[in-house]
Each structure stands twice: as structure tokens, then as C-alpha cells.
């Protein structure tokens, strides 16, 4: 279950401005395996939902660690210090890099 290639851990909570040098491949959040860290690139949602996600910390630029991602289990990410559970449909609409 553990991600085979762990991204470099970021030690500072506020380290948002450092660009991830490793990879810049853009994909849907739903494709990210558990244990990997990614950065939110874009959120495709209506204004209300966008605002809600942003308020919960899921705004572009945010660091996200996927904690669970399996077909029948929950999709849980760690973002800005709190665990957030997302519906499947939602995870397809969040682009990460």
C-alpha cells in the first residue's frame, strides 16, 4: 500500500513557495497513490464549492498528502494539518502536480 517513491518530505509547514523540482506532471488527485505528496494545481468546481474547498485548505498551491486511496475505502488527504475526506467525484476534479 505504501507509495514506492516517496516525495521529499517538506520540513516547514509554510514552505509553499519552493517549487517541486522532481516532477511537474499534472494529473487528477484520484490517480495519486497513498503515501505520496503533491501540490494542488487547479480545482475545477463551481464558485461555491471552490470557496468551500479553499476554506478547508484545498486551494491551488496547497501541499497535499494522500493518506488513503483505494477503490472501496475512503479517499483521505492531509492538507494544511487536517485530514479531509473527499468523494470520488471530487478527486477527479482536482488537478495536482
Amino acid at each position: 500500500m505504501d507509495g514506492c517513491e516517496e516525495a521529499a518530505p517538506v520540513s516547514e509547514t509554510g514552505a509553499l513557495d519552493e517549487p517541486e523540482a522532481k516532477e511537474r506532471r499534472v494529473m487528477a488527485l484520484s490517480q495519486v497513490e497513498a503515501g505520496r505528496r503533491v501540490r494542488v494545481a487547479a480545482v475545477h468546481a463551481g464558485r461555491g464549492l471552490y470557496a468551500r474547498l479553499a476554506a478547508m485548505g484545498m486551494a491551488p498551491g496547497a501541499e497535499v498528502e494522500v493518506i488513503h486511496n483505494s477503490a472501496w475505502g475512503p479517499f483521505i488527504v492531509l492538507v494544511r494539518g487536517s485530514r479531509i475526506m473527499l468523494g470520488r467525484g471530487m478527486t477527479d476534479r482536482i488537478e495536482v502536480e
Partner: protein
Amino acid sequence: MTTIAQPVSARAKTITVALAGNPNSGKTTVFNRLTGARQQVGNYPGVTVERKEGVRRYGAWEIRFVDLPGTYSLTAYSTEEVVARDFVLTAKPDVVVDVVDASNLERNLYLATQLMELRAPLVLALNMSDVAQARGYEVDMPRLSALLGVPIVPTVAHKGGGMDQLLEAIVGVASGELPCDPAPLSYGAEIDEQIDALEAKLRETEATPAGRDPRWTALKLIENDDLVREKVHAEEVLQAADHAIKRLERVLGDSSEIIIADRRYGFISGACQEAVRSTVETRHLLSDRVDAVLAHRILGLPIFLALMYLVFQLTFTLGGPPMEWIEAGFSWAGSQIATMWPKAADSALRSLLVDGIIGGVGGVIVFLPNIMLLFLAIAVLEDSGYMARAAFVMDHIMHRFRLHGKSFIPMIIGFGCSVPAIMATRTLETERDRLTTMLVAPLMSCGARLPIYALIIPAFFPRAWQAPMLWLIYMIGIVLALALARLLRSSLLKGESTPFVMELPPYRMPTAQGTLLHMWGRSWMYLKKAGTIILAISILLWVLTTYPKKQAFDVDYAGLEASATEQYLSAMRELGASIGLSEASPLLVRMAEADAAFAEAEATYFPHEPGYAEAEAAREAAMAALTTEPGGDRLAAFLDVRDAVREARDAFARAVEEQGLEEGSSGYAAMELVLRTSLGEIQRRDPEVYAAVVRYLDEVQAAYEATRYELAQQAASEAIQYSVAGRIGRAMEPALHPMGFDWRIGTALVGAVAAKEVFVAQLGIVYAVGEAEERSDALRAKLREAYTPLVAFCIMLFTLISAPCMATFAITRSESNSWGWASLQWFGLTGLAWVITVAVYQVGRLVGLGA
């Protein structure tokens, strides 16, 4: 806990404090710590958002705390956020305390930045600072406080830590002794420039809405906030705002709203970089593994269902005995009050008190054990953090019906009773979900409807069909509830069906104070709000079923009773002859007359009234005189045998009852043998008298009493027909006819509005079989004569779907905060019930089921 040194002066200064914060930040715990049990639960005006208020004395201050709904931000997109924002803007609290989860600082400060934008007098309570420290966060409070420009107090609410310091800071900010000057946020040169320009324009045109800050208004206009736009009545300002938004989008390449959110986070991470040192690596906690199971769509389901079963059992099984005590208490109180008037007096006040008010209030309070236990269970589920996981598990099923995963809980509770079910919708986060769930909850067939099915199903359907029939009725309710929810969500309560996004709170041990306050707050609100409405409706229903009173009956019941008495006496004469009493001294007849005179007195007086004792003495005297007359020995023998037979029979009945013997069991047979032996012994002593006594007990007297009972019931039936309820039943006939119902069912349906189970009792009255419960076999027989199984099914269908009971109506009114939604539910469901029942009846008749 604090001890306040100086006494509170008579003119204590009152300050209002609003408590803001993210969900799961410990805001409610802080609120409970600050206010203790002095809380009031209610609603914000016009919406279904819960409002909690509490008062705390601190030194010379009286502090009124208002608990704002837990929110992540202050946009115009959700009712909760609008409520919180409006409260800060319009009620202008003296201090706003933002409870911030210190272990999750960045995300929590997002709300703080928006409160800073509002220029609210802000105090940050850095809650759970112990957890944050344990996790390796070190917050430089003075530094952070200086960066944000607001006082910061570390608190550990669940242990009560930091509360005095928080109160001190509140009082300090309110009195102006503690400086609070929220730092202005910068959103980057381009946006700042536009805000400046728009602010200037707002000042120049004086278009800033009353009480609003012009800079905040300008910011919100650039964020394209619909609610603020509505309030700005200057076309040129709005045009300028549109222009600025377009320009910014062109320059920055994204919508201004997105950029502003981004800049807020930028400000926060800047502040955190300076003031927070973190040695944290993201850790995989044990709770992550637990979540993998509890929130698993398959593995999580049985766990959830088992817990729901427990909640249901707790609520209704454990709640059963106290409910019975309450019912017993009220019926005792009713009988006590009833005896305050002479029995014969036709007192309207007594009837109002006993049948209307005591019955009505009892009907309210009887739900209290249910509600307390349910909210105890819900508080534990919520506070422990489990509810969020359960919501996820149910979400993919409920989502198909456009309901939230959490809607499942009120719907399950609805099988017990709609009242707590509707109250349980408070756990839902959005108003749309809450209203939808509330409106369809009565379709879950509640416990009070069971007596109706229990009366009808055995009367009309063969044994093999009975269980499937009951199942079918329940299923119809569930299917309709889900279908209706979907319909509502795509019509009246249309809106973006929110994809599932939810914060996972960490697992926590619920605190006793928190759960108990939660439980008590809900129960008290129920009593206060529902109580008043239910009381009013029960009085109304009492009037409907009591008035107008029938003065002259169509049938001469007195005459019929007199002729029944005559028949009885002549039968007694015959019996007397059979034991050798002569025509000249008909002692048995005279005994019967004495008995009848006493029965009359019994109907007129309560045992404590003087008339009762007089009548009793008169009978004694008459009987004593009779035994001294010629033939008195035969009468004495008759009385001896009568008492002996009665005693033997009573002993048998008592034994069967006490030992719970069932007919056909060996114990029952043994008791029967004992009875037969003792009766045989009595018979041997004087076979002639014994035969007369058995005839007296089983035929003559029994027939007389049955006739009198039936006449009384017929009179009651005629009275109810004459009452408004009866007339409504008649008036409804044109509407009832297409469903196969007659006016009798209509009258019973009027009663069902008080409480569904009243339908059975009411039907008993209109069918003149008396209070139906004990004699339901008699009622079943009458129903079988009058209706076909198709009509019987339609009765169940209609009572399932139609008009929720008055308690449900009252609670929907108070929970939705609107007569409109409550009326929509009431009339909507009744209309739906009519359409469906008519369709079923008519189609059923067409295919030949009506025979």
C-alpha cells in the same frame, strides 16, 4: 473554575461576545467551559441554523456569549457562513473570539483573516495548545499576536485551561484596555489598488450599506459576493466593481476570488513562518488505520448499521419504561383532577383539563425520554468523531437520492418516532439537506402507526400474508421518502448537490459535560417550543371532538335502557321461581332492583362523594331486610353460592394472569382442573341454586351489562358524529369516497392528527365498540363487515403517508423556523397520500381486488 472575588454590582456592565471558529476546533467545548449550564438553544431568525447563547459573570461584568455556527470561512455560499458574518456585522458584538485549533494553525487562521477583514474586535483563543506542543509545534505567541494585530490566548478547553486568561482578554478588549487592531491584509499591488479605488468610490457616493465598513464592502465587491452586491444600491459602484474584476482577471489570469483566497493563505504562511517553529514530519497515526476500516464502503457498513441498531435500541427500548411511567403519572393526575368535580356534573372545564390539556401535555412530555436518550447517543457519536466516518460510508447510497450521508441517521430514527428524527436533522450541515430530510422523515413509518397496522392486518389478511403486508407498508414508506427527497432536491430545494468533502476530526473521548449539555439543551428546547404548539393543537382537537354537544339524541337511549332493565327483572323473576321463590315474594327481583339502584349511583358519584356511601348503605340495608323476609333462606343460599362461584373464578383468573399461563399449556390445564373441582363441590351442595347462579352470572346479568355498555357506546358514537370532527368526517366524504373510505374513517382520521394511534381508539368510538384497544376483536369483526381488504390496505397506506401528527407538525415548525415548511409538509404529504391511495384503490377495483 473561577471564584470571583468582588461581588457583582447591581449595575453590572453587559458585554456581548461572539464565538467563531472552524468545526472541530473545540469551539463548543470553549463555549461550554465559559457558560456552564447557563445556556439557551434556539435558532437564528428565519433560518434553521442553531443558535446557542450563554451568560457568564466575570468580576463586575456580565458577559453574554453567542456561539456562532462553526465555519471555515465567511463567504456568501452557505447559510451558516452568512449567519456568522451577519451577526458580526449587524449585532456588532463587543468582542469576537475566534477559537483556533493550534495543531492545525494555517487552515484555522483562514477564518481569522476574514474576521480581521471585517475589522472585528478580535481575540484568538489558541485552543488545544497542549496537543500542538505534543505534536512539535512551537508558537511564538507575542510574535504572532504582533503580526496579526490581535491578542492571543492559549487555551486547553477540554481541561478548562486558559479560560480565566481568555475572559481577562475579552474584558480587556471590550473595555479598550487591551489593544486590538487587526493588521490590514495586502492582496498584492493590483488588487489593493482596485480595492482602494472602489473604497473611495463607495465613500464618495455614500453607497456603503448601513453599518458596513467601506473597505470590507469594496473587498467583497471584488470577490463578487452576491449578498454584498445586493445591498449596494449604486449602479456606478457596481459597474466599477465589474470593471475591476474583469481587469484583475486579465492581469492576473485567474478570478479575483481565487487570487484573494490565495493571498490570504500567503499572508498566513508568511506569519506562520515567522512565528511558528515546527519539528513536525507528517505522521501516520493509528487513527488512519482505523479510518481505513470505519470509512470503508463495505467493511464500514456493518459497523455503522450495528451502531445504528444500538442507538435505536437505546432510544426506544431503554426509553420505553420511563415513557410508561410518564403515561401512568399523567393518567393518575387526570383521574385525580377528574374527581375534583362531582361525577354527575357535566363540567366542560373538567373535560378540557383532563382530556384536552393533561392529555395534550402528556403527549408532549411522553417523548422526553426518547429525545434525551437519542441526543445522548448522537452527542457521543458526534463528539467521538465517528459521525464523519459514518457519513462517508452512507454517502454513496444517500447521494443517489440527493441526500447527504448524514441524513441516514434521522431517517432511521424516524422508524421510532418522527419527532426526535426531525430534531436529529440538526446534525446536517447545509440548510437544504436539513429541510429535505425533515420534510420526508415522517414517511418513515413511526411506532405510533404500528397499532393501526396491528388492528387492520390481522382483521383482513390470512396469517401467511401478515408479515409481508407489514414489510410492504414499511418499504412503501422508505421508497417514497427517498423518491420525494430526490424530487425536492431537484425542485423546491434545488441546488448544487455538494460532492462529498468533509473534514475528518480526530477521534476524541467525548466529555461528560459536553454530552450532557447537548442532551439537556435539545430536550429543553423541545419542551419549550413544541410544548406550546402541541398544547394549542390538543385544545383545538378537544374542541373539535367534543363540540357541539348533542342534547337530544336520535335514539331514545333512556327508553331502551329501561326496557332492557325490565327484561332483566323478568329474567330474574324466572330465576327466582327456579329456586323455589314464590311469585308473592320475588326476592331475586328485589335484589336486582337494589343492585340496579346502586349501579345508577355508581355512575353518578365518585367513591369519595357522600351520595356513593349513601347508596352503598341503602343497598346493604335492603339486602339485610330481604333475607329476613319469607324465603330469605333461599336468597341467602343464592348469595352464598354466587359469592363462592365468583371467588373460585376470580382465583383461577388471578392465577392464570400472575403465572402468565397460556391456554393449552399444562399449567393452565392444572388450574382449570382446580377450578372445576371447586365448582363441582359448590354444585354438590345445592344443584338447584348452583344452576340458577350460573345462569345469573353467565347469561342474565352478563347480557344486561353488555346491552347497557352497547347503548352507552352508541350514544358516544352519536355524540361524536354530531361533533365538529364527525361533521368534518361527513364533509370529507366526497374526498374520501374515491379512496373507498366512509365518514367513519374520516372521523377517525381527524383524531389521528392528534397522534396516529388515536385513529384506532377513534374508530372504536365511531363503531360503538368503545375504547378499541381491549376489544379490538370486536372492532375487527365490524371492520370486516364494512370494508374489503383493498380498503383496509388503503387505510394503512393513507395513514402511513398522510398528515403527520401534531407533534411532528409542531417540531417541523420550530426546527424549520417557518410555518410555511411545516404547512407544506402537512398538506403536501396529505395530498400525496390522497393521490396514491386513490390510484391504488381505483386500480385495485379495476383489476377486481375490491370484491
